[in-house]
């Protein structure tokens, strides 16, 4: 057993876990944050994407102990029903989800994508390429791509307005 401490969605949490505990198990089973999903166990599908120290990570492919001392953000940490993150809002506005199972990973990947490229700097080809690590079986990606592009452009507008 190892003691793991991290800042999870802004709150410092710690627990004693088996060494082999995956980060996704820590998030879901230890902390009860079930918004992060497990779709494949082999780091292909991306339903488990969270942010660790500001970078998108597949939490099924990282041990909880590796996140010791890190700042971890899950889907629950980026916005709420009353105060949606622009990417969350865009997924709803553009029907970028159906069953909702891949959605947490899609949104967390999209936020990371916009962070890395800069808001307003994403085109369809780039978005499609960047989504290679996230599988959706429902939407055919069409509306996910639209949602991410719209969110990216909207966030650019917001940034400009703030200046």
């Amino acid at each position: 057993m190892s003691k793991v401490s991290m800042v999870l969605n802004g709150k410092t949490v710690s627990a004693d876990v088996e060494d082999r505990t995956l980060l996704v198990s820590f998030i879901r089973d230890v902390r009860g944050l079930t918004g992060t999903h497990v779709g494949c166990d082999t780091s292909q599908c991306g339903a488990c994407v969270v942010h660790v120290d500001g970078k998108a990570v597949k939490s099924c492919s990282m041990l909880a102990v590796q996140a010791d001392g890190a700042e971890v953000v899950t889907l629950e940490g980026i916005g709420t029903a009353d105060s949606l993150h622009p990417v969350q809002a865009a997924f709803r506005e553009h029907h970028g989800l159906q069953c909702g199972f891949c959605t947490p990973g899609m949104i967390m990947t999209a936020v990371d994508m916009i962070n890395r490229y800069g808001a307003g700097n994403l085109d369809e080809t780039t978005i499609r390429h960047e989504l290679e690590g996230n599988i959706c079986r429902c939407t055919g990606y069409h509306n996910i791509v639209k949602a991410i592009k719209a969110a990216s452009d909207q966030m650019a507008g917001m940034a400009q307005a703030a200046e």
Partner: protein
Amino acid sequence: MAVEGIGARALRKEDKRFITGKGRYTDDMTMPGMGHAAFVRSPHAHAKVKGIDASAALEMPGVDAVLTGDQLVGDGIGNLICGWMIHSKDGSPMKMGGWRALEPEIVRHVGQAVAVVVADTQAQARDAADAVIVDYEELPAVIDPLAALESGAPQIHPEAEGNLIYDWEIGDEAATNAAFEKAAHVTRMEIHNNRLVPNAMEPRAALAGYDAAEEHYTLYTTSQNPHVARLVLSAFYNVAPENKLRVIAPDVGGGFGSKIYIYPEEMVCLWASKRVGRPVKWVSDRTEAFLTDAHGRDHRSEAELALDADNKILGLRVKTIANLGAYMSLFSSSVPTYLYATLLSGQYDIPAIHANVKTVYTNTTPVDAYRGAGRPEATYLLERIMETAAREVGLSPAEFRRKNFIRTFPHQTPVIMCYDAGDYDATLDAALKAADYDGFAARKAEAASRGKLRGIGLSCYIEACGIAPSAAVGSLGAGVGLWESAEVRVNPVGSIEVLTGSHSHGQGHETTFAQLISERFGLDTSAVSIVHGDTDKVQFGMGTYGSRSGAVGMSAIVKALDKVEAKAKKIAAHLMEASEGDIQIEGGELKVAGTDKKLTFTEVALAAYTAHNLPEGMEPGLKEGAFYDPTNFTFPAGTYVCEVEVDPDTGKTEVVNFVAADDFGNIINPMIVEGQVHGGITQGIGQALLENASYDENGQLLTASYMDYCMPRADDVPSYSLSTHVTACPGNPLGMKGCGEAGAIGSPPAVINAITDAIGDNSLSMPASPEKVWALYHAGVKQAAE
């Protein structure tokens, strides 16, 4: 929120919980004291189970029990069943082999469960499952369906001699043979429909609890049809009587058919929860899903199309061998028969059709309905041979199809179906226009200048949805009726709960069903809640599959709404001292026509519940239920056009344009319909280019993870161009046909027809891997040079 009625692009009510991480899927559920299950699975495709030694596993930390098939059978748990009886052409019933949820004697596919471990944690359960020692005696296995039918092939079930499940036929063989005798041209093709794995992103899961004091079970499960699950678990598997079993399918992360069936694992979790005395949760990992979720398709067919001298179709002759895997899954028998061969007439006036279908056991995962279920196989066969025939006789594929379209309705095909309405010219025209079909030659030349091979392919599909008229399917062998039920509960303050037997696992029923009520009563959609997926709340229902939730599920709601409206009008007329016939419902109010007298919907609802002043003899309350049994199938149809570029150096295909023109009848929410088509097309492109369940000769599934089975990713597909044309369905009150499967049905032949156009070889099979495309193209180039 607002009044968002039929036709509004209403944003989804359910989305907020999904985009904020508050969805409630089965794996998110817990019960106090719950343990975790892990299954011990066969590594062999065919083997005798000679012994199971659980002693080491039982010593491991956290382990409660290791349960085996002998105990399951000893407790009287029944075999898994196939619920649709098919008779062979000689009149004999299909040959159903015994299927136990935990197999005590002979395993018949890799991944079949022989034991289950229950432990405190999932990791402990999985560790202990690895420590269970099973003594197997390997038996010869047969994987290929054609090989399984050969004499001397390994025998899989004692009930099915020669591994033949049934030898079935449809249509008039003599008339079809006569049509071929007078044909001016016959096109012949061998057409395979590759085996697929459905791959809903949420793996199957179950959480079962047993209350000993009440002798009552609760099951959370990933089901498209929780009531059917309860029925089968009760009536056939003897788990518990229906009143002692509550089945809840909460948020379900996609189904595509694979979550219709009642699998061994859910049943074992229920049984184990009582045996072990604690709730039991099981969550499939992805490889378990590949090995045990019912697969789809897997047909080998020979098709012949007879044309007269004017290129009108005279007849179609089809022989199909369908691989059903190691066991007959719940609806497996109906897929390659009544969901397949009845659609072989397509959009065409074909005077004579004969199809012979043999289904066969092999040592592979069971095969059942997957998005489209039989209809993709029919469409692929027909649209491949239509395109090929057009090329052979030198007609434009579009004009050849147009020449043979059905134009008068109702149209009785030679294979049972009676098409009620459609306008196939309209969707063909729309698709050709959107695809700029006439401008293709210039695009092909431009692509050639870049060294690329450009091709264009068509597919004019039809499907039968709205499944289905109960008496009709009963006469064809179905074990259940396929109606739907609904209950509309108006609360005393005028908000409404609609209980439906349909189940949403991504389709957006919480929104579209609310739009129907919003339209009817002029109420804000936020005043309407949709309740589904719980056998304790909804009395009964048949669930969601076969694109039936609109045409059948919403029709049941309409019937219940009719009754609610009639009663509300009676109450309003009584309160306003008016004639019932003069009451109009508009904008959330009940008005007396031609006067300024009115009551709000809320006032009428409250009056129904206070019951202080109701018409003489009227019962209090405002709640009505209805069952709706469809009068016919519905027939969505359309045309898809795919344009591809093939790189002759690598054989890689890029889909550069994809156009869909669909007729789904009336549409409740275009946004949701478009989403269904996007997803369906992508699954179809996946089948055509990328996906294939591959077994080696020993029955090992080589594609049992996302590292080996190629799911379509975002950069494998383009954005799509969609349009709809409406011919209302005359068979149901809303005029709906259904849209859930069309994309997956119509797209594979369009893609393959485009590639065969590009490379000049009609023999290409799915999936069109770069290697296969490259080899065919270069073989053709070489042959032309010789």
